[in-house]
């Protein structure tokens, strides 16, 4: 059954009301701040891609509640294994916008986690991060730590073998790992109904004997609540956040080729940001002026960060560092070669 706390119009359900009462003002305001900031960051990234400032980009729009709500339930000591679309998770978890922009500018520095964070670089090959999360959870269990591991992935990932192997390991070894699937309806152009013969992602959990939660992925409160609950159990669980990407798969994709416009419109009416903002306004947590001011602050900061990233240039020597623990002598020769190749700016001459 789909867990729901906040209806698209911004009205709380009964379960939602009781959860809402348990939240502090800070938590409530944080969720709004993260939702709005992530949307702003994401829209700027799409624009910056069009302006040639960054490379091909995978937009988050439509999935903000799933990402913010889940990441907000995490602690700094938790292990996070994102896929490539998790800018909202990264931002909420405390990864700098500098790193996020660098990554999408083709800069390896953007992969480096901040000191003390177990935030793993985005995984590009589908579903391959799931077994890593299993192993990280295993290390938590063996060391008797208190954190958990969480892996983020899409509905398409459920077709890869790694998904099934990870769930099986997690269950057999009884590990504190959450498999967080954002079912956004499509794997690039392939709709979920052609991806999977089961109607939902959650029903796959029963094959592995683990807990499952299906939650309205556009409802930040329900997602936050579910992840908090699943996390506290310290058991493997599969969470399906039912959502939709309202944009294209990436900036290189044309979604109008494979999905009807009417469908997109239906989901725009279930916008995750609008409903939570309505709730906050109704509850008098803040007014529109305050939102506006907060937005301006975030926008200024984002633009400043982009300018800084643009100003810095990568060094070809860095191709060679960290490939091995120490650069072997034979590879140092290649490093020198690269450093002396002054025309590296172009493949031509």
């Amino acid at each position, binding site marked *: 059954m789909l867990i729901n706390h906040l209806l698209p119009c911004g009205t709380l359900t009964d379960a939602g009301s009781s959860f809402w009462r348990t939240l502090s003002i800070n938590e409530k305001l944080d969720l709004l701040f993260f939702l709005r900031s992530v949307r702003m960051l994401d829209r700027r990234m799409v624009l910056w891609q069009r302006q040639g400032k960054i*490379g*091909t980009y995978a937009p988050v729009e439509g999935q903000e509640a799933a990402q913010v709500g889940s990441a907000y339930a995490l602690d700094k000591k938790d292990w996070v294994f994102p896929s*490539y679309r998790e800018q909202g998770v990264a931002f909420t978890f405390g990864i700098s916008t500098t790193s996020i922009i660098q*990554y999408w*500018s*083709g*800069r*390896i520095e*953007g*992969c480096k986690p901040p000191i003390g964070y177990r935030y793993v670089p*985005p995984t*590009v*090959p*589908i579903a391959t991060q799931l077994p890593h999360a299993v192993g990280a959870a295993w290390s938590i269990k063996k060391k008797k730590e208190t954190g958990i591991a969480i892996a983020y992935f899409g509905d*398409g*990932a459920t*077709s*890869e*073998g*790694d998904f099934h192997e990870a769930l099986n390991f997690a269950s057999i070894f009884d590990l504190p790992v959450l498999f967080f699937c954002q079912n956004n309806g499509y*794997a*690039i*152009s*392939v709709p979920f109904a*052609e*991806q*999977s013969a089961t109607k939902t992602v959650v029903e796959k959990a029963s094959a592995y004997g683990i807990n499952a939660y299906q939650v309205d992925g556009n409802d930040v409160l329900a997602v936050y609540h579910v992840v908090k609950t699943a996390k506290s159990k310290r058991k493997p669980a599969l969470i399906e956040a039912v959502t939709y990407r309202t944009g294209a798969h*990436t900036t*290189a*994709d044309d979604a109008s*080729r*494979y999905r009807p416009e009417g469908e997109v419109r239906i989901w725009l009416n279930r916008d995750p940001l609008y409903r939570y903002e309505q709730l906050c306004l109704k509850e008098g947590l803040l007014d529109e002026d305050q939102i506006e001011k907060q937005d301006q602050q975030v926008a200024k900061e984002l633009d400043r960060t982009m300018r800084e990233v643009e100003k810095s240039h*990568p060094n*070809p020597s*860095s*191709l*060679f560092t960290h*490939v091995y623990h120490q650069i072997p002598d034979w*590879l140092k020769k*290649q490093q020198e*070669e*690269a450093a002396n*190749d002054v*025309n*590296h*700016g*172009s*493949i*031509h*001459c």
Partner: protein
Amino acid sequence: MLTMVQSIADAQRVALEIDKNVLLLGEDIGKNGGVFRATEGLWEQFGSERVIDTPLSEAGIVGSALGLAMGGFKPIIEIQFLSFITPAFEQIVSHVARMRLRSQGVFSTSMVIRAPYGGGIGAPELHSDSTEAYFVHTPGLRVVVPSSPYTAKGLLLGAVASPDPVLFLEPLRLYRTQKEEVPSDYYTLSIDKATVVSQGEDVTLIGWGAMIPLLLEASRLLMEQDITADVIDLQSLSPIDEETLFASAKKTGRVVIVHEAPRTCGVGAEIAARLSEEVIDSLEAPIKRVAGYDVPYPLFALEHAYLPSVKKVVQAVMELVYFQ
């Protein structure tokens, strides 16, 4: 006039038309026409029984394609990017490449696995690798790489006609850079042969895929210094056309091999070994390789520092010409 990606779509259209056992399988190849549009229009023309959008599972695609091939069908698979072939690696190296041997010729393994590959277009992480050497190292597979719209169609149809499984690598940097006349009918080019795309006397430049335009540019620059080059488009990485390579090396006495893949154990190493085994007496200088560095393919901000360049090729040739 077609681009390479259009000629690849056209080759598949022809293959589907002339042989009802041809099936296309891949991720996003149906309604979407492939992420690069290499199957554009084919789902509309041939329907979802023959142009099949599969679940997101490379092992599933290649493994089931082998079963289809054994059952008498001729699958043409699209792997979305060569980097994502790895979940199917086991199916390819343990089964596709061996089923003919293990069944002592009873079961067919005939299929074409298409995969765009290579760098230089600013693609995201893990979308630019050149891992051809893994497959050239696998007995039982053929590996073919086109470098122009015309050769792409002829070689792809040649690959479809082959009873052996063929990995058909499409240099994505060349997908749309050139348009040329491509016959709309069926034609094949030999998938065993290298071609000499430009003739010279002083040095042999060997490459494939996206390296060919770069070698032609290098050869043009060398001409200004009165150095002329044989530019050889290898086309077939497995088997290697020794005859063409040896003849050219004997004539020029100098060889530069160029590839995007890391230098160590790249296909260049195999070519250099064969040349030194067979024609070393004719060589006037050591064989040179211009290749990617021995590091993982970088995120795109540094890909031009990593990739072979015209300048690196010209420099390598100069070292050979002035070698004492």
